[in-house]
């Protein structure tokens, strides 16, 4: 997708001068950016740079100490959870799940915000659940108990639950955790397809190669601020790696992908 086309697209979620801190220790310092519908935005940066905190702020789980996170001109933290869940979903970084729950029921939890007290498991719900399970390739696990799953299988089922929620904005916190090589790419492909379908996808990623390969835009964080923002080729430069990660690297482009290897490792 060209940059020109992205810029035409509407803003799904906006951060305006957002700061956040636990006590006196600031985690984020006046961060501003927009998330646009139809793009996959990757947030990368070293450990403790505030990536996950940004995602929590965007999901309205915590309130900024200054500035605001706006969805349709409303602060997200002030929108009732159920209403917000129909617009925005977060795949949190956790592997807590009830052991005796069936996989199909776990994916079905994604439909909660669309349910009524008695109106549950409608054909519409089933369509979304089936579609999400097919996309994450977990249909074969439908009748298994969550306690029997491997970490990777559980993560795919949780992603399916997130997709079943059918929200326009998807926030993914290190979604490739626990996944093997094949499923890492499969998941990121699904995330990409969601963006191409017009949704806004924000993913916190550890792996810069993943980010370069799948993201339309990358935000590189460093110590609570945005160090660089732009296309993968603009952001993932050797100079930036040294400035932010403090390590000299050699960048090797493979098609869309940019692989950074530590200089020392090549000697």
């Amino acid at each position: 997708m060209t940059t020109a086309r992205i810029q035409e697209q509407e803003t799904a979620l906006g951060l305006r001068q957002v700061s956040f801190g636990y006590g006196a220790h600031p985690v984020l310092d006046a961060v501003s950016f927009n998330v646009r519908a139809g793009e996959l935005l990757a947030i990368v940066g070293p450990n403790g740079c505030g990536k996950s905190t940004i995602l929590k702020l965007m999901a309205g789980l915590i309130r900024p100490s200054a500035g605001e996170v706006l969805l349709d001109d409303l602060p997200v933290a002030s929108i009732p959870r159920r209403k917000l869940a129909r617009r925005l979903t977060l795949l949190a970084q956790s592997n807590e799940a009830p052991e005796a729950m069936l996989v199909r029921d776990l994916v079905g939890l994604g439909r909660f915000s669309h349910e009524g007290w008695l109106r549950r498991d409608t054909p519409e719900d089933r369509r979304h659940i089936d579609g999400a399970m097919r996309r994450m390739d977990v249909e074969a696990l439908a009748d298994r108990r969550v306690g029997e799953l491997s970490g990777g299988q559980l993560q795919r089922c949780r992603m399916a639950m997130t997709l079943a929620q059918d929200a326009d904005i998807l926030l993914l916190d290190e979604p490739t955790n626990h996944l093997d090589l094949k499923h890492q790419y499969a998941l990121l492909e699904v995330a990409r397809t969601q963006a191409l379908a017009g949704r806004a996808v924000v993913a916190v990623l550890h792996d810069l190669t993943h980010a370069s390969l799948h993201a339309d835009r990358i935000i590189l964080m460093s110590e609570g601020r945005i160090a660089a923002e732009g296309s993968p080729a603009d952001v993932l430069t050797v100079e930036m790696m040294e400035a932010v990660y403090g390590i000299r690297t050699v960048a090797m482009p493979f098609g869309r992908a940019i692989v950074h290897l530590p200089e020392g490792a090549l000697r």
Partner: protein
Amino acid sequence: MKPCSRLALLLVFLLFLAGMHLVSGARFSPIHVVTQALFDYDPKNYQHVVIVRQRLTRLVVAGYAGMVLSVSGLLLQKVLRNGLVSPSTLGINSGAITFVTLGIYLFGLNGAELFWPALFGGITATMVAFLAAGLVNRGNRDPLSLVLGGAMTATLFSAATTFVISLDPERFDDQMSWLIGDIGNFDYQPLIWLWPVGAAGLALALLLSRSLDLLSLGAEQAASLGTDPRLVQWASLAIAIPMAISAVCIVGPIGFVGLVAPHMTRMMIGETGRIPTLFCALLGAAIVIGADILARTLLAPKLLNVGTVMALCGGVAFLALILSTLRRRQA
């Protein structure tokens, strides 16, 4: 088998147990006498009087206590995401008993009036258990720290109960069987006032069960799926504690059901949606009714305490659960 059919099967089993309960006792009553007593009651027939005034009331009390204690345990286990908690292992029962003895000793309360000191005691015990758990905190979210806190709380309040009783032992003669946890022949009297607590609690638990499903994924994930985790947590505690207390007021401290019925429910029917909550309620009723049948027939014509029968089974079950928790952690 579908969850609904399992629920129906359990209902049939419960009705069967209820029938067993009515025919058995110190003296066996044939079924036709039981049906006659139920539908064509003759107050001058001694058998009829035993069946309706003693067995039927015991049956209802046992069923009620089992139902509310197990639903309370289910709520506590789900909301605290800890399979080792229950009204008894958190010390809620012990706290309630202490405040009931105080209510009797200081203010001469009796019957359903004791619900209020008991509720106060239950809430106090819960807070003490959380506080103690915070002090022994063995790392974030170790299920054992809350259980240790609960055990300390229970010990503390048992000692306090013993102290209050020792101040005026004769006054507590009538309460002896209640203090051990037993179903007596006149226990239905407070139930007449307290059953709405259980009924409302069950209805609210059914309404909350879907939100509790979400909460089992962690507070953050639950929030982004569309529920308010804080609200669900407080509401669950606000339902679970009065439910357990309403049983304690009637039958005293009966452990085991609140701990084990939720586990058996998970094994038999899973843990998603409202059906497991209903299943757990019926299963709890069946367990206490079953225990009451045993208590009345094992050493007939001598009666055993239901509380004693349950405590014996409960100790073993609790040990098994702790061992399996420890083993899972080592794995």
